[in-house]
């Protein structure tokens, strides 16, 4: 039996205001870089918080490397970096690293310090005085210092300037190349994930809309352009028409009469997100 990095069965999370996630079935494979895509409020953060054990599901279950989150903290092989990069504000960077060391038996001090040094963050600086980019680098160093097999990053690039984004992604990818760890990262900016992710989980309205290997998904879909008189193919995700012309994104192979292209990741994701929104409305 394959062990997945994350594996959800009938997963649901109900808040006072309604369902944050509902009936979610998905598997994210190990050794891959998975993108968690969806608009704000789609349930991306909820999903990650369920995996860490910060939240307990209302229905169903989620397993991390085959184990449900227990009472003894987050799975030892799982690291989580929340969107607002929570750290102890009054601590210095060096003290934050010490906190990482005492809170984690699997801590790799040398490695965490190396990541901080590479980021050029002064160790005696108070966490509260760091820039967004530095804060992210420190939080990432502490997350990776646990030597996780799976790392969950919730909107890691939000609020970062382009240089800091590039730095963070390069650090992260280099560590993946070294350790072969599994990465799950969420974003509502799909362009950030193109070329980085090889697996996709698309959420909208608390439900899974699309999942799978990115290349397979791209190969299975076509952007079709043709006369609006033509018969629509099967598996239409989204169709837009002008007076004469129709542009269709469909889960299909080549269709006679239509000009067919493989979609880009962004085109594909946007089509699913727009169609989910149209259904909801």
């Amino acid at each position: 039996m394959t062990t997945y990095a994350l594996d959800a069965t009938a997963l649901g999370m109900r808040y006072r205001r309604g369902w944050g996630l509902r009936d979610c079935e998905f598997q994210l494979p190990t050794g891959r870089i998975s993108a968690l895509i969806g608009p704000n409020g789609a349930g991306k953060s909820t999903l990650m918080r369920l995996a860490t054990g910060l939240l307990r599901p209302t229905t169903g279950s989620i397993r991390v490397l085959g184990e449900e989150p227990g009472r003894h903290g987050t799975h030892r092989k799982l690291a989580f970096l929340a969107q607002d990069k929570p750290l102890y504000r009054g601590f210095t960077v060096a003290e934050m690293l010490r906190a990482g060391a005492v809170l984690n038996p699997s801590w790799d001090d040398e490695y965490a310090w190396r990541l901080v040094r590479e980021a050029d963050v002064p160790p005696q600086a108070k966490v509260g005085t760091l820039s967004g980019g530095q804060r992210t680098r420190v939080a990432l160093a502490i997350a990776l210092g646990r030597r996780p097999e799976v790392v969950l990053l919730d909107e890691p690039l939000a609020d970062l300037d382009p240089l800091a984004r590039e730095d963070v992604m390069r650090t992260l990818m280099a560590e993946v190349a070294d350790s072969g760890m599994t990465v799950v990262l969420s974003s509502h900016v799909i362009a950030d994930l193109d070329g980085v992710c090889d697996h996709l989980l698309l959420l909208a309205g608390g439900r899974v809309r699309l999942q799978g290997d990115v290349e397979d998904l791209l190969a299975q879909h076509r952007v079709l352009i043709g006369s609006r008189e033509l018969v629509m193919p099967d598996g239409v995700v989204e169709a837009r028409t002008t007076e004469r012309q129709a542009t269709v994104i469909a889960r299909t192979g080549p269709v006679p009469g239509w000009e067919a292209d493989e979609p880009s990741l962004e085109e594909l994701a946007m089509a699913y997100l727009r169609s989910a929104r149209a259904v909801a409305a």
Partner: protein
Amino acid sequence: MTWVAWRQQRLQVLISLAIITALAAVMVYTGFDARSLDETAVEDKYGMYLGYLQLLLLALPVLLGAFAGGPLFAREIEQGAHVFSLTQSIGRTRWWATKIAVAGLPVVLGMTLLGLVNAWADPALSTLRGARLAIPSFEVQGVAIGAYTALAFTLGATAGLLVRNTLGAMVTAIVGYVPVLIAVGNGLRPHYAEPQGGVVDSTMLREKAWRVETSYVDGAGNPVDLRAVCGDDVNRCFEEGKVRVHALFHPDDRFWAFQAVEAGVFLALSAALLGLGAWVLHRRLRLA
């Protein structure tokens, strides 16, 4: 986790312990000084001091308790830092228990010691106060003061988990604590032991027993209605010995037994609040 909790709470702990130490030093000095003076000199020198000291020691348990307990969880949750703490390799229970112990134990123990120091200093000033068992002398010395601090602290800590707001948690601690203290002092403490009964004479005043009920009896010791027997001239009635004052009271030597019971009551309430906190932490609390 102990180091992390200490690093987070050390400022609060050190400030509290500094206040406690300063007060203890003042008490020790006063205790020695008052013992070297005669009664009138003590009254002149320490009359005002005792009033202020009692006021301060009545307020201190709830202030230090709320100061330690209110922000303990509330501030960490306000800042979102609990998401960091709880996604490391330690469970919620250890996080909660360690923070409680590191922030709470020093102030509770410190206040208990302060109460004992004050109990040592108190006899030197005993002519300035009423019964040691009565409000407010009882509350400011002995071991109960530590238990009061524990209640204020656990109220603040548990409220912080629930309301997740530092100010709200501290206010809850104060607003919750004061009525309990008043209710226990007036409603519960007189019943910690069966009061003794007797006709009041001057020795009782010297011993400073705590009078909890007063009634009137005739020469044979039967209860009487003062107004029915004496009419309007009450003073003459007493002079003639037709009516005497009978009181229910707790003698002064019950002080330490009462302190123990009172401390037990407040520690039990604190434990119940900790239990509520633990239950909330596991069953009800969405910490994200």
